[in-house]
C-alpha cells in the first residue's frame, strides 16, 4: 500500500505498541502527535500512560528512558530535533551505549531514540543539522537512517525489537514523501544495505534524503550511457560494507553522498573501508558530495547553496569517470 514516510513510521510504532505492552513512548508533545503528527492518535489508542508527554528536559528524559530500560521496559524516546540530542548526549553516550558492556552483559538497554534531522523549510542552524556521524562513532549505539516509507516502517520495528540502543534518524524532508509499503509484518534487519538501482559504471552510496537525488541523477546519467549502481546503507552502524564493496569491485568507481558536512562525515568511514577492501578494483579517486563545512544557514538561497544537489552528484560522477 502507498503510504507517506510519516504514516509508515506511525504504523510501525503502533504495531509494536500493540504487540508488546512494554513499549512506552516518552517525549515532548508525543501524546499530542508531536509537531509533525508522527504520533497522532497513539495516545487515544494506548493512553497517556504509554504515550508520555515530558517537560523540555532532553538529558533527563533520555536518562529516564535508559533507567526504564534497566527496569524492564522497552522505551522509545522522541527527541524533537536532532539538534537537541546534544542535550542528551551524556546519557546516550555514557549510559545507553555503555551499560551493556560495562556491566559485563548484566544489563540490556532496549531503547529506541526517534529523532528527525536535516534541512527542510529553512529552519536554520539549530533545527536542520545532520549529526549521524557523531552517533556512529560511539560503540554500543546502532544508527539507522531510513530513506523511504517501507524502510522507515521496517527498520523502526526492528529497532524497537532490538535489545540495544538504536538511534532512529528520520529525515524531516522525507516525511510527506510517498512510497509503497509491503502489507503484513514488514521488518527490515538492522545492518543491511539496499541496492536501490543496479548499474556497472559507477557506485553511488547515498544516505536518507540523498537517495532520491542520487536516483534522479542515475536516471539522467543513464541517458548518456553512464549506468550508476545506487546503494542505500540504511543503517550506518553497523555498516553493511560488504554490499558497498561488492558493488565497487564491479564498477571500479565510487561517489558517496550525504547531507551532513563532509569533514568527519560518515562518508569518510565508507571511503576508508572501501579502499581497504577494494583498493585494487578502484579506477579513480573516490569522490564525496556533502554539505559545505559550515553551520546550516537559514535563508532559502544560502540553504540551497549549502545542500548537495542532483547537479553536484552528476558532476561528481563525471569526475569519477573522467579521472581514470
Amino acid at each position, binding site marked *: 500500500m502507498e503510504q507517506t514516510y510519516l504514516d509508515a513510521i506511525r504504523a510501525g510504532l503502533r504495531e509494536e505498541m500493540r504487540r508488546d505492552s512494554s513499549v512506552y513512548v516518552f517525549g515532548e508533545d508525543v501524546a499530542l502527535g508531536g509537531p509533525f503528527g508522527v504520533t497522532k492518535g497513539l495516545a487515544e489508542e494506548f493512553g497517556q500512560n504509554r504515550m508520555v508527554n*515530558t517537560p523540555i528536559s532532553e*538529558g533527563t528524559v533520555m536518562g529516564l528512558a535508559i533507567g526504564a530500560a534497566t527496569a524492564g521496559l522497552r522505551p522509545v524516546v522522541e527527541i524533537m530535533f536532532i539538534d537537541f540530542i546534544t542535550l542528551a548526549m551524556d546519557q546516550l553516550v555514557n549510559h545507553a551505549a555503555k551499560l551493556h558492556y560495562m556491566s559485563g*552483559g548484566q544489563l540490556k538497554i532496549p531503547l529506541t531514540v526517534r529523532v528527525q534531522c536535516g534541512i527542510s523549510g529553512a529552519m536554520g542552524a539549530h533545527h536542520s543539522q545532520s549529526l549521524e556521524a557523531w552517533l556512529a562513532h560511539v560503540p554500543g549505539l546502532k544508527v539507522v537512517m531510513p530513506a523511504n516509507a517501507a524502510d522507515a516502517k521496517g527498520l523502526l520495528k526492528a529497532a524497537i525489537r532490538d535489545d540495544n540502543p538504536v538511534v532512529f534518524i528520520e529525515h524531516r524532508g522525507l516525511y510527506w514523501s510517498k512510497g509503497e509499503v509491503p502489507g503484513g509484518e514488514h521488518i527490515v534487519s538492522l545492518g543491511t544495505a539496499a541496492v536501490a538501482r543496479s548499474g556497472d559504471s559507477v557506485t553511488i552510496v547515498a544516505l536518507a534524503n540523498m537517495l532520491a537525488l542520487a536516483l534522479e541523477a542515475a536516471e539522467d546519467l543513464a541517458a548518456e550511457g553512464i549506468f550508476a549502481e545506487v546503494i542505500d546503507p540504511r543503517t550506518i552502524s553497523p555498516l553493511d560494507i560488504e554490499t558497498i564493496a561488492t558493488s565497487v569491485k564491479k564498477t571500479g568507481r565510487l561517489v558517496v553522498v550525504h547531507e551532513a558536512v563532509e569533514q568527519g562525515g560518515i562518508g569518510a568511514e565508507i571511503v576508508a573501508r572501501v579502499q581497504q577492501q577494494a583498493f585494487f578494483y578502484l579506477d579513480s579517486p573516490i569522490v564525496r558530495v556533502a554539505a559545505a563545512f559550515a553551520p546550516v544557514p537559514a535563508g532559502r538561497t544560502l540553504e540551497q547553496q549549502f545542500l548537495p544537489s542532483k547537479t553536484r552528484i552528476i558532476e561528481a560522477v563525471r569526475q569519477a569517470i573522467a579521472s581514470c
Partner: protein
Amino acid sequence: MAKTNSLDPIELLRRMWLIRAFEEKASALYAERQIVGLLHLGIGQEAVAVGACCALRADDLVYGGHRSHGHAIAKGADVNRLMAELAGRATGYCGGKGGSMHIVAKETGFITATGVVGGTIPLALGAAFAAKEKKQNQVVMVFFGDGAGQAGPFHESLNIASLWQLPVIFICENNGYAEFTPLSAHTKIKRLARHAKTYGIPAGTVDGNDLFAVRDAVEKAVKKCRDGKGPVFVECLTHRMRGHYEGDPAKYRELAQLSEWKKKDPIARVVRALKSKKAITDKMIEATEREARDRIEKAAEFALSSPWPAAGEVASQVTA
C-alpha cells in the same frame, strides 16, 4: 552476603564493618598497585549506605554514583565479586569491564553506579516509572553527592519525579566537598533538601553519621513512597575521611576538621549507642570487626587469585 530489609542493629553494624573493611582493604591493594584506576572511597559514610538500604526490600532497585562500593554492599553485593571487579578480574561482577565506578550487581537490585556525577538520578526516575507501571509497590533509591546538586539533570529530575509522583527516594550524601571544593564555593544553598522542597518534594536533612537517624528517616520515606505518595528526598550530612579519590592528599581540608569528623565516626557511634543500651558486649564488638576483616581478606584472596579476562573479551558485549 548481607540481606536487605533487616533492621537488627547488630546486623547493621556488621554491614558497616563489612563496608569499612572492604574499602580499607581496597585502599591497601591500591597502594600496592593490585588495584589501579580511580578509586573513590566512602570511608566515614557507611551509616548512609547501611541506614538507607536496610529500609529496602530485596526487589527494590538502587542506583549509585562514583563512590558506591558501600551502596552495593549494603544492597547485598557479594564482596568477592566486587573486589574482583575492582581488581579487573574475569570473576568480577562485570568481568573486569566496569571497575570501581561502574559496578552493576543486578541480581541484588544494585542496578548501576556511574562515573558521571549525578548521572544515575534520571535513570532512577525511569526505573521508578517502570515500578509504578508494574504496580508491585517497588521503590527505587538513588545515591548522589552534594556536587550533583548544582547539575542540570538533578533539577530536571526533581521536577519530573514530583510532577509524575514517582516512587523514588533521593539520598543526598552531603559530605561537604564536591571533588576538592567545599560546597559553599559552588552554591549559596547550604542544605540541598531545600531544592527538593522547591519542586514540591517532601525533604529533610539528617545527621548522616548517625545510623539510626538515617534508618528512621529513610524508613519513613520508603513507606511513603511505597504507599504511592510520590518521591521523598533525604539529605544526609556526612564526611568522607579520605580524599576525593585514593592519592588525593586532600590538602584543601583542615586537619582540625578531619579530627572533628573522626570523633563522629559512624561505626564508633553505633557501638557507643549499643553499649549504652547494653545491647552489645565488648566481645561481640571485637568479633564483628574481626569477622568483617576476615571476610574481606578472603575476598581479596579470591580477587587476586582470579584469572584476568580473556583477550577476546575486549570487544565482546559491545552490543547485546
